[in-house]
């Protein structure tokens, strides 16, 4: 890594003692010698193992659940169904007033994605729990499912989630989060060229080394200690408190070093049911995702579709940009309404464009619920925006890097969401990239600055 101190030299200081120093990480020796304790290193006498019975169908009505054979399986201690969960229908962002509650801890009457948790089996060993789970009989009536966002938004599509009532999240602004700035149609009308393109991604997995999980120990004082690899301690504790209708003071969450998060451990999934199991059995409980569960059951990054329509002048100025973004939330909200809305605040990218129209939709389909991941709400948008920038540059016969300089935002420029730009540094990054990659651009671009002229 090279630090280029010549940029912004007037505002960066070198008068600090500890900051800016490459101090060795205090936890590295523990990591590399195997001494760092992770949550799964906790082991308690009498600890039970929790395994989930999961839906084999993408969308189905549950006619009946028969646990009688599973209960007789040697080693089985407790079997939990929806009726055992005090507040079974929840949504994690309810803590910041983003509802409605739309997801079940254990399926109640219906499953909405293949892999949804239906019955929890607690047994003396992992193997007994697994074997008993296979003996739970669930009678399903398979329902039509919808997997494609465009299909899901059509009238008459199967309804994925009754708690929403339609296959998209209803914002206070309506069916999507909107940004309106200038007059985008007038911009297109006056443009030398108009280019509309569509971009698509598939879900991806966080792929942490350590899978999602927790170990719960009932304490002598009627409290429960939950050793967890959640990325958010109180967020998980407070949601657990709601789901279990248990005062937060009864809960003690202990985290530590996590073996990779990337956004995959901010859903509140394993802790509430494991604590409920510990409460109802009085014994320690561990619930740890297998690698297969981590890959296909835990939330991936959402698939997204992004449609960008741009009006551009032959001299390189983008005069209008319309973006329609679709986030595939899967069957439940989790963090997706937040992520889709974040996209609305991110478009039209780090460029100053006088006419902007943005709609971002959070769409429900019968697939594994997606949720947060590194770059949430932005990564796929950046892929779409920056490929679109390349196409626009080639359309008007301009160098792609020079084209970006022409449109780059600078301090004081008004963004589409009506905040003046502050602390911009896109131009300087591109200047340094031009030098580092030996990709020359015209001298006038190398002389540009993010600073407001004369300020």
């Amino acid at each position, binding site marked *: 890594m090279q630090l280029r101190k010549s940029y912004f030299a007037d505002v960066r200081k070198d008068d600090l003692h500890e900051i800016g120093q*490459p101090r060795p990480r205090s936890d590295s020796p523990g990591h590399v010698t195997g001494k760092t304790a992770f949550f799964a290193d906790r082991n308690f006498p009498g600890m039970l193992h929790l395994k989930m019975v999961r839906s084999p169908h993408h969308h189905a009505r549950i006619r009946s659940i028969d646990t009688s054979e599973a209960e007789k399986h040697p080693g089985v201690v407790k079997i939990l169904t929806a009726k055992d969960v005090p507040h079974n229908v929840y949504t994690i962002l309810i803590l910041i007033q983003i509802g409605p509650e739309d997801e079940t801890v254990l399926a109640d009457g219906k499953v909405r994605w293949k892999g949804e948790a239906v019955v929890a089996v607690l047994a003396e060993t992992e193997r007994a729990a697994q074997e008993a789970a296979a003996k739970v009989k669930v009678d399903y009536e398979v329902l039509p499912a919808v997997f494609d966002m465009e299909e899901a938004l059509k009238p008459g599509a199967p309804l994925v989630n009754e708690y929403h009532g339609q296959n998209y999240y209803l914002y206070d602004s309506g069916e999507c989060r909107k940004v309106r700035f200038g007059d985008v149609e007038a911009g297109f009308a006056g443009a030398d060229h108009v280019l509309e393109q569509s971009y698509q991604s598939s879900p*991806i997995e966080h792929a942490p080394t350590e899978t999602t999980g927790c170990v719960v120990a009932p304490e002598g004082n009627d409290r429960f200690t939950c050793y967890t690899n959640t990325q958010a301690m109180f967020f998980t504790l407070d949601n657990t408190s709601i789901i279990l209708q248990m005062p937060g003071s009864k809960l003690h969450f202990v985290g530590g070093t996590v073996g990779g998060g990337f956004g995959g451990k901010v859903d509140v999934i394993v802790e509430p049911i494991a604590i409920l199991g510990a409460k109802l059995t009085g014994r320690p409980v561990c619930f740890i995702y297998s*690698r297969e569960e981590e890959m296909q059951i835990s939330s991936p990054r959402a698939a997204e579709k992004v449609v960008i329509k741009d009006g551009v002048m032959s001299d390189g100025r983008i005069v209008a940009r319309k973006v329609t973004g679709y986030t595939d939330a899967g069957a439940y909200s989790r963090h997706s309404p937040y992520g889709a809305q974040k996209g609305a605040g991110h478009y039209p990218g780090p460029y100053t464009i006088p006419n902007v129209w943005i709609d971002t939709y959070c769409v429900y389909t019968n697939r594994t619920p997606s949720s947060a991941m590194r770059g949430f709400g932005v990564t796929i948008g950046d*892929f779409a925006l920056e490929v679109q920038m390349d196409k626009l540059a080639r359309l008007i016969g301009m160098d792609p890097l020079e084209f970006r300089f022409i449109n780059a935002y600078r301090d004081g420029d008004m963004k589409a*969401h*009506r905040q003046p730009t*502050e602390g911009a540094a896109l131009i300087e990054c591109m200047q340094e990239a031009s030098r580092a990659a030996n990709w020359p651009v015209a001298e006038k671009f190398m002389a540009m600055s993010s600073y407001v002229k004369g300020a």
Partner: protein
Amino acid sequence: MAIRRGRGVAAINYPTGMNLGGDPTQALVHSTPTGNFMVTLSSVDLGQGMKQIMAQICAETIGVPTDRVVVDTADTDTGPHCMGTFASRGTHRAGNAVIQAAREARQVMLEVAAEELEVNASDLETDGQGNILVKGAPQKSISIFDVALSAHFKRGRSISGRGMFLIPRSYPEKETGAMKPSTCYAHACTVAEVEVDDETGEVTVLTVKNVFEIGRALNPKMVEQQLVGGSWMGISHALYETTEPYYPNRDHGGTDFNQYLMPGPGDLAETEIIVLERPSADGPYGAKGPGEMCANPQIPAVANAVFDAIGVRIDTLPITPERILRALKAQAAN
């Protein structure tokens, strides 16, 4: 049939912290009897080294070496509330809370030292080595070790502080979308070079040159790890990864690291990291959140390089050999 070479560029920005704010983090700082400092948080270290960064921020603010600071975190019985480690918010939010708490603790520490030295607290400074000196008369000094002992056993003072950082929540205006998503943005520009085998559709990323503007590299070695790892993840996202290879079809999803494709060490490009620093107005010592941003620009840069190499666009991620061959076939048919 040939190996074709191409080059692509992408430039991006990225917000620091939860979109629209409203995401608090608190910190507590106190000294032990012998002048070591405890930072108490409930933030989670995801392996990115958050504890180390919080220790350096606390040490800088109080004016002691980093090895005199211990971070106790991720325990809800002891640590005050943190919204969580996500949204590139850990360093920015928790760092600001630690600075506030450490400043309050430092003030008490200087007041006790002032009583011991019989001077005004405002006339004192720290040397960063564990001593408090009278400005302009450094021969008149006291160690922080002795100040802490005095505070505990003689003067009955608690060298401690409370810190809280909250960006007030912004609510988007319904019709116009007027809102304040974030208070500071990191930036990046990436140039990628690729080779594409137009017979097999295989893409080899040769070089990735990344320029990142991150406000302030609080620990250059640690941020380098994060930026290099992010750059690799970007390549992986562009060319390899998906849990649903034929999305929206649900079949063929990988269930382990054999089926779920990611690049191995031999597949990774020669990676260059260049850092620029434009300190942010509200960042701890100017820092912005680079954690997520650093994995984004490689994706479009690689996509644009693939086009530069073979003249067809793949607008669907990931850019697999299958998609490349189908696009080349469609191009030939036209």
